[in-house]
């Protein structure tokens, strides 16, 4: 076969008949779809199922300058045994902390099912040299973190230097070794759903085990429509390659009702296969007590005072 002349570099040639391009997102329609899924009415045993699942999927988070080993001790105890008065409430999936607190967290969760996740890569801005980020990731993994939550270089992404973003994720993934990599897109800085989709596909192509909406450090964090856009990108990757990538909405999820809405959206977009902490996490710092309160309400038929739930 004659060889076709090469395209000038920088041109993308759709050689596959399927999904030859990244595609786009219609803002109005995706927001409508997300709103309509949020109107599902989840009651009784279906609600108990969702609340229980929400606990299992939770990344209990503290990312403050004032975090100390003492704070981490309280958080991990809560993570392992969220409701001391009810043994049937499961442990959360993981605690999510800053690198310096990883050793304390690892020490406290030993022997339990709770994993330790650490943010890294110059979290939350990501504005540091790649070498520094890679070194940071190596260290948190050495200290025993099971999961690494990295941030993408939004500056590079928004200026169109996608290769820089991609290469960095690839290097971080390599530095993670066996640790799971969650890639934070920081959707609040990406500006459009089209960008969110593009960044999602980029992160997955570069090896992300999970894609995650936000750092939680911006007022605009996870929303239902932005999470839907990311779930649909995950679905496309799964359909094309068979690879299952996880999803983690984070930031702004404070109430059980929201958690249930996120799970309904997950259920109806990616199906029951994804209803596992291996493929879905809810990043939250204040959600847990509201979920516990709802679980107790479903079990006893009445609401308890917040005084009965520990503040950790």
């Amino acid at each position: 076969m004659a060889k076709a002349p090469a395209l000038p570099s920088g041109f993308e040639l759709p050689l596959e008949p399927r999904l030859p391009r990244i595609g786009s997102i219609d803002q109005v329609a995706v927001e409508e779809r997300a709103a309509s899924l949020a109107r599902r009415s989840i009651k009784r045993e279906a609600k108990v199922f969702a609340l229980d699942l929400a606990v299992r999927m939770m990344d209990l988070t503290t990312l403050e300058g004032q975090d100390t080993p003492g704070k981490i001790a309280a958080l991990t105890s809560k993570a392992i045994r969220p409701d001391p008065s009810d043994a049937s409430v499961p442990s959360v999936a993981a605690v999510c902390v800053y690198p310096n607190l990883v050793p304390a967290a690892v020490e406290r969760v030993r022997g339990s099912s709770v994993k330790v996740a650490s943010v890294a890569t110059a979290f939350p801005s990501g504005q540091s040299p790649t070498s520094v980020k890679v070194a940071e990731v190596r260290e948190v993994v050495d200290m025993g973190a099971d999961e690494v939550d990295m941030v993408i270089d939004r500056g590079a992404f928004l200026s169109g230097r996608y290769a820089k973003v991609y290469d960095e994720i690839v290097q971080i993934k390599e530095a993670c070794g066996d640790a799971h990599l969650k890639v934070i897109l920081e959707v609040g800085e990406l500006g459009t759903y089209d960008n969110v989709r593009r960044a999602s596909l980029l992160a997955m192509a570069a090896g992300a085990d999970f894609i995650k909406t936000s750092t939680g450090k911006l007022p605009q964090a996870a929303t239902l429509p932005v999470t839907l856009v990311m779930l649909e990108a995950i679905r496309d990757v799964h359909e094309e390659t068979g690879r299952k990538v996880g999803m983690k909405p984070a930031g702004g999820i404070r109430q059980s009702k929201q958690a249930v809405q996120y799970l309904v959206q997950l259920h109806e977009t990616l199906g029951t296969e994804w209803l596992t902490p291996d493929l879905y996490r809810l990043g939250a710092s204040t959600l847990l007590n509201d979920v516990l309160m709802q679980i107790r309400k479903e079990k006893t038929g009445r609401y308890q005072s917040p005084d009965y739930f520990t503040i950790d």
Partner: protein
Amino acid sequence: MTDLERRQDRAPVPSSWDYAPAPESRDIVTLEERYGLFIGGELAEPKSGEYFPTLSPSTEEVLAEVGQAGPEDVDLAVRAARDAYENGWSTISPAERAKYLFRIARILQERSREFAVLESLNGGKPIKESRDVDLPLAAAHFFYYAGWADKLEYAFPNRRPRPVGVAGQIIPWNFPLLMLAWKIAPALAAGNTVILKPAETTPLTALLFADVLRQAELPPGVVNIITGDGRAGAELVKHPDVDKIAFTGSTEVGKAIQRELAGTGKRLTLELGGKAANIIFDDAALDQAVEGIVNGIYFNQGHVCCAGSRLLVQESIYEPVIEKLKRRLTTLRVGDPLDKNTDVGAINSKQQLEKIEELVKSGEEEGAEIYQPPCRLPEKGYWFVPTVFTNVAQSYRIAQEEIFGPVLSVLTFRTPDEAVEKANNTPYGLSAGVWTEKGSRILSMASRLEAGVVWANTYNRFDPTSPFGGYKESGFGREGGLHGLEPYVDVEESEVRG
């Protein structure tokens, strides 16, 4: 840490998540055993002496008996409307008319849950649709036309708009209350009086609406509601003292009405069937386009005259679109219309179910490939699984005839010209959809498609300010917007100069 705290308690994740039933309570609706005809402000026994049962299509339960209007009843209703027209409604101040319309709109909003439940009960549509679409839109139509009532001089400047007189309005069963609002609101705003005949299978919300009219203290006879089958409609069309007929329904009946009215001088508007093309270009936002396809054809069980029943997909994205669509269909929840999580409700009647079944059978026989998601249907009632036909040729009946059910026929195209040609290759011309990221293509397609409504990157979206109506055999005349007033006003043909 204690041993208790160290316990491994991650249980295996259950493999499915079934939503518990979440039914809307029907206690809010109080039904009479029997309903008469609403004539001259009173519900009265039909002179015909005839009643017929009205059902819940999701359970086949008889909800109530309603009167069958005979010729004498129709005559009484027309007289009541004429009397109300001559003695008040056409001459009271327009602001006064607006007052009643605003009242009706507000009462509809206040009683919206009651109406939504009854609409779903009697018609089979999911409560989320009657609650979020039918009721808000019905109220919005009354609000919108209430605003026009005292501004007709501005709507038709220098043309001295006057009411037409007595209007006979015949509406279908797919959006019983919404179609009532589309018909009654502009007619009253312009100073006409009305005899409304709801569809045979769905009379109950119209009869409940009679109660709203009493609550609003609308003068007797301004709106009369007569129930019954096609015979009642035929009597109304024939009645010599009716000045205008507005009909929404099948093309077949529409044609018969037009023949009947030829030469009588009565005014006529028809809003008839459709076989709309929903056109997906390869640059469209695919997941949202798939939502639009679903909303286009499975909304209200496909009982929508403007339903996007013919899907035209550009060949280069055919596979992913069909895969995504099939996958999406597996998540549609078919069942109890009163359950808040139901996406697709019951087919409106046995007769309609049989028609759908017959056409679907013809599609299979003609060689189209059928796909239906796994779906457990209730044992009683009228149900049809959401269906997609692929490998459909333009010549198949399922590509030509209006099915009026949850059945989609998929065709492909290669170029914009071919899409236009195929989309227009139908006797109908009510609506169309275009899905593309390219604004210029939206504009060029909209101008080339022979359809009264062209939606771009959305589907089945309605607003009282926007006119709606058809080309070709989909009818003539417009409802909604300023255009929706025209059929109900008489204007000076030549401009009056001061």
